[in-house]
């Protein structure tokens, strides 16, 4: 039962990743791309981690995965901020 639920979570995460990647490729400017990428990826990763926790079953493992998720969120938020600020400064190039 938990395995099935976990798999569903992971499948759902794939949809978010796909959306994020399409956004990265198709959206017109840096800020919009960043928006698509960070939002979709963070949610996607969250779902992936949740699914993996369910399938893995260990509490310790779940904690480690959760830590990974938090770290990635932390880093990607700041990276996104840096990229956005850089883009603002440079003006719109791409």
């Amino acid at each position, binding site marked *: 039962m938990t395995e099935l639920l976990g798999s569903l979570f992971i499948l759902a995460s794939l949809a978010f990743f796909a959306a994020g990647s399409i956004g990265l490729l198709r959206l017109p400017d840096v800020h919009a791309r960043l928006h698509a990428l960070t939002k979709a990826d963070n949610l996607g990763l969250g779902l992936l981690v949740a699914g993996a926790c369910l399938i893995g079953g260990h509490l310790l493992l779940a904690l480690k995965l959760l830590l990974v998720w938090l*770290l990635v969120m*932390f*880093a990607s938020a*700041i990276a996104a*901020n*840096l990229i956005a*600020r850089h883009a603002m400064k440079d003006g719109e190039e791409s």
Partner: protein
Amino acid sequence: MEITLWHLLDSLLAILLLGLAWSALSGTDLKRGVVLFMAFGLLLSLIWARLRAPDLALAEAAIGAGLSGALLLLALRDREKSENKAGQPMSLLRLATVLLMLLLAASFALAYVTAVTSNTGGRLAGLAFGNLEQSGVSNPVTAVLLNFRAYDTLLELAVLLAATLGILALGSERRPFRRPGVLLGALVTWISPLLVIVAGYLLWTGAHAPGGAFQAGALLAAAIVMLRLGGMTSEQLPHQLLQGWLLAGGIAAFMLAGYLATFHDLAFLQYPAGWAGLLILLIESAAMLSIALSLGLAYLGGSPSGWDERSSRGKRS
């Protein structure tokens, strides 16, 4: 031979990898090439995981994609004269090199396929697993690196030392970065200690699970890179004399452990019975620090300010 979903996944991964490599190498835009190369490294790390080589997946992500990537990105700041005329050779010559390349790849593939299909035995795997009990660790890759083929690893540390000394001899470090804004500063202050903890964990766990000195050392080096991005100057590194000892430590620990055995009438690098686990942990700790400092100094790009004064202090004149 049955074709399963796994094989489709494998083909997809292989094609993606080749595509990434091709676009990283064929474009004239170097920045793009470097970014694609980092993506290549990450994909490779995924493939290591697929091929059940988690130790390599960790090392590739940390060293192959991570640190190499950081070094290459930094190198983009140095302009080359030749970059302006990144011209391609004439079309006929180009065709010839492509044909030669295909010939090379084809002969390699021919030999490889023949070899793998004719030799289906376990090669050295049987021997390695058979002697795992006596190696002092239960992670077979660590056993090969630090015990069965420890001599390779010893010389590999010498390679790293040679590269580091070469970089130090070329001149002084790059200018440090400007102090970052609040957010990046916060990231640096939070991440660096965390990296140190994770490195310690990887070192410890390397004895029985994926990890070990190299992955841990790379993470520590990543901490140096982060701090550097956060505006660290080389004065904040350990004292110059200590740096020398740290650089030498990995090899020195190996040699001491190696000759320890010879006093017990054993071969060089043969760990006395019961001591293997402890000796391996000690060697790995020293090696981790050497690796971290070497790679960190490589990121600094040259000798830290005042490095040469080590030799002239106390000079009479």
